């Protein structure tokens, strides 16, 4: 067996017997993401469902003169409150302080204006800077528009005019997003957790085989043996890669299971994490494990102790998934130049897979090649470092 194989086998056995390495690879790494994801997603989904269904309460001023309007609002799950405010300034202050989401003020001449066919005025009192009040504002506005339209249609019909004459344009929206595509925003979070869990799964091994070995004093005698430094380093990186790859696999499976328990269908979403898609995701993400193994090994090899290494690797762990956050805030379509950015390319390709859409095979090839190249580059830098004398000091 070559020295590389000897080192690989020894480090694998050593890591498998190390409980901390195992726990971080098989438990923390892969399960942390899906659990957090499930919690966040089900909270967000429930919030969306709740807001659409639950009645809202809206304080009204001068509501006595608009009984028909009030009963229309009631049918639309909007309960008006006549007593709470009598003074418009008090209502405005309450809205400004966000005690009330929206309020409604009816003009004193509302009833009279309706009867004479003038424009009857109502004011929605709202704070447009308050994001949490937006859904209530939108619902109230939609209900008022609907009421107004209904009256308009009746008036035209009474005069023997076809109401559709007053609507020369019919604006319709043709939503081409597939149900899976709509869930992509939520599932975008998934790639972030996948990358993170891959890194987390192998970092303990990367530290243990480099900084840990140095700290325990077992590195120096190792360097007096006939095996080359390159063989030592690649053997170590190989084991870190295996742990990251295992962590990634478990993470994907636990995502596929977790998604089944999410009420995505209730908000018109489906997530396609069929076994075939999971295999595809694994193929897309696996090169990232190579990058992670190289990166974590070179970072840890610059430190002298386990604790020091943990500090620097946790900083290094934040960096790779950063491009994903940028893209979630500012969405882009996959393109060849973007495939040159590791982590971003994996995110975009996985997103296509989850949407159930095909991607350019060249994109996958470029993404994998660049990502593996970065990992190999880190590995070569580690070999260089192990050839130098600074590793002993």
């Amino acid at each position, binding site marked *: *067996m070559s*020295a590389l194989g*000897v*080192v690989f086998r*020894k480090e694998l*056995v*050593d890591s498998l*017997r*190390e409980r901390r390495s195992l726990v971080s690879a098989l438990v923390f790494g892969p399960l942390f993401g899906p659990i957090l994801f499930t919690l966040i997603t089900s909270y967000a989904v429930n919030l969306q469902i709740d807001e659409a269904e639950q009645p809202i309460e809206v304080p009204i001023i001068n509501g006595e003169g608009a009984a028909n309007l009030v009963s229309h609002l009631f049918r639309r799950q909007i309960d008006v409150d006549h007593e709470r405010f009598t003074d418009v300034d008090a209502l405005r202050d309450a809205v400004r302080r966000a005690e009330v989401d929206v309020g409604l003020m009816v003009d004193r001449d509302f009833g009279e204006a309706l009867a004479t066919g003038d424009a009857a005025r109502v004011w929605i009192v709202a704070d447009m800077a308050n994001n949490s009040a937006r859904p209530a504002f939108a619902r109230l506005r939609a209900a008022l528009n609907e009421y107004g339209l209904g009256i308009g249609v009746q008036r035209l019909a009474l005069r023997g005019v076809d109401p559709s004459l007053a609507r020369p344009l019919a604006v319709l929206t043709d939503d081409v997003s597939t149900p899976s595509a709509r869930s992509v925003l939520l599932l975008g979070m998934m790639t972030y957790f996948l990358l993170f869990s891959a890194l987390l799964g192998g970092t303990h091994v990367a530290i243990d085989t480099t900084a840990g070995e140095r700290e*325990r*004093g*077992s590195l*120096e*005698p*190792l*360097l*007096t*043996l*006939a*095996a*080359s430094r390159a063989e030592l380093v690649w053997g170590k990186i190989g084991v870190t890669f295996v742990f990251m790859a295992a962590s990634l696999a478990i993470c994907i499976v636990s995502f596929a299971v977790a998604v089944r328990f999410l009420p995505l269908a209730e908000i018109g979403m489906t997530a396609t994490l069929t076994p075939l898609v999971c295999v595809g995701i694994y193929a897309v993400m696996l090169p990232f494990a190579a990058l992670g193994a190289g990166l974590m090994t070179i970072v840890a090899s610059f430190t002298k102790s386990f604790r020091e290494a943990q500090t620097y690797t946790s900083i290094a762990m934040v960096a790779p998934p950063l491009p994903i956050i940028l893209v979630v805030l500012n969405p882009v379509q996959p393109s060849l130049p973007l495939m040159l950015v590791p982590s971003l390319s994996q995110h975009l390709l996985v997103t296509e897979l989850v949407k159930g859409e095909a991607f350019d095979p060249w994109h996958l090839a470029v993404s994998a090649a660049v990502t593996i190249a970065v990992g190999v580059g880190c590995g070569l830098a580690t070999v260089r470092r192990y050839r130098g*004398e600074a590793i*002993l*000091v």
Partner: protein
Amino acid sequence: MIEVENLTKRFGKVEALRGVSFTAADGRITGLLGPNGAGKSTTLRILCTILAADSGVARVEGVDVGEDPVAVRRAIGVLPHNSALFGNLSARENIAYYAALQGLDGSQLEHAVERIIERLDIGPYATRRAKGFSQGERLRVALARALVHEPATLILDEPTNGLDVMATRVLRDVILERRDHGCCVLFSSHVMQEVAVLCDRIAIVAGGTTVVDGTAEEIRSATGCDDLEDAFVAAVAGS
């Protein structure tokens, strides 16, 4: 056979070696003696090929350490001063790992590991994980790792540091046995008595240079002291 001529080594501003020279013959135990910080470890690390000298020559069995480090590594067995075992591996796995990295293979490796386990009486705990080993057990396994490929040259850096009486005795026996097999044994120490008892030849190093090099008798007459400890102090102070 180890030949060292005029080695120099600088770490940044610190001049660790300023011209160390000595020879260690086959079938002899050579002690590298000197106070802490004298340059003993640096010299041994150059001989082990893990540090490169700035100038000067170091040869092991006629091979220059700078020219063919891999040949030198195959020829030597090394016991560094805090040589740790792999705690998650058994004694046998520790030894076999070193044997494999020194290029042994297949049945050859099996035989070498078996032989050294038997010779150092490691058998009773050969399959136990090294994590809970006593000092004596650890030392035996570390020695077995260094000797498994049967090197003609044995290099030990402060091997007796922190060892109890029993462990020291094990070490001494192994060193003497190796010498009687015709090996070249080089070890460093800052403990005078230990060197006096074991060594056929002594090189005293202080301040990065060799101060005296010779047998105990030669050193006594060169420094004009009857007692070897006085001779050591005189030699070190004289540098």
